């Protein structure tokens, strides 16, 4: 089991690498100019502020050589997960539908949020639908947006993976998502379920001392899945 964590200038690759390792996964940080990902069983595009998020969230990172490789990796069915800024980069790269806009309140938010796992085709993730987890968010541009057709397609084909929710898993009242996300969406995947993007940071919840342990499932699930597919 070997995951690659992409490192752009400004990304917090170390946090994800540490979290994955602490869940027993072998990881390696990969510099953004690399073009060979063959040795990896999965790729994580981590959070942070790649290129300062100048111009648009993820706009510059998307143009780096490694992202073309990540696209090919995903095309071949390889598992790719984008966290926070990584989600923004995957959306900019059109590996995931829609876009991430500035938070509705225009303010950065850092706090622990409750998420409900939706029934989805996401292969990064094997928590049962309806399960509720507590994961920190930390972003200024996590407002998920897509047009109506895309939204119903996401719904119909099980591509909505995570929603911000109440503690008991019920839907939030309108306008209560931390970033104003459309339909309270916190994470989505592509149709095949191998590319997954989420704004919350599971890597910040792998240690009871610093943020809880609900995030571990995001990494251990990958291990199980990847082991199951012979990766």
């Amino acid at each position, binding site marked *: 089991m070997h995951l690659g964590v992409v490192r752009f200038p400004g990304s917090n690759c170390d946090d994800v690498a540490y979290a994955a390792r602490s869940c027993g996964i072998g990881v390696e940080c990969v510099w953004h100019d690399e073009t060979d990902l063959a040795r990896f069983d999965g790729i994580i595009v981590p959070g942070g502020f790649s290129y300062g998020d100048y111009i648009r969230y993820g*706009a510059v990172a998307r143009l780096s050589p490694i992202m073309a490789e990540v696209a090919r990796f995903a095309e071949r069915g390889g598992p790719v997960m984008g966290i926070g800024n990584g989600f923004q980069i995957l959306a900019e790269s059109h590996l995931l539908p829609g876009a991430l806009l500035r938070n509705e309140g225009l303010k950065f938010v850092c706090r622990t949020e409750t998420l409900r796992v939706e029934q989805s085709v996401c292969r990064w993730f094997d928590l049962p639908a309806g399960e509720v987890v507590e994961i920190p968010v930390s972003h200024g541009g996590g407002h998920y*947006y897509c047009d109506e057709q895309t939204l119903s397609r996401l719904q119909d084909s099980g591509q909505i993976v995570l929603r911000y929710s109440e503690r008991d898993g019920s839907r939030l009242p309108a306008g209560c998502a931390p970033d104003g996300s459309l339909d309270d969406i916190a994470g989505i995947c592509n149709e095949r379920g191998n590319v997954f993007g989420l704004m919350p940071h599971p890597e910040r919840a792998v240690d009871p001392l610093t943020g809880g342990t609900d995030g571990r499932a995001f990494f251990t699930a990958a291990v199980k899945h990847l082991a199951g597919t012979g990766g």
Partner: protein
Amino acid sequence: MARYEVYVTYKEGVFDPPGAMAERVLANLGFGGVNSVSVGKFIEIDADADIESVRKMCDQLLANPVIEDYRIIVAGEA
């Protein structure tokens, strides 16, 4: 050397958080009659390049076609 002006605006229907916030705050500040505000980008480029390449710059970097439209104006010699 030519000067180009690029106007990047949200596509119709895309939620514009800074615009929506501006509408709210302007109303709070007592400005009546404001129907809508939208906040886009105004990019000025001085370049030895034709408009075709400026278009490519927009497609590749300066605008995101999923949510944004852009318009290029040749503003003269720089």
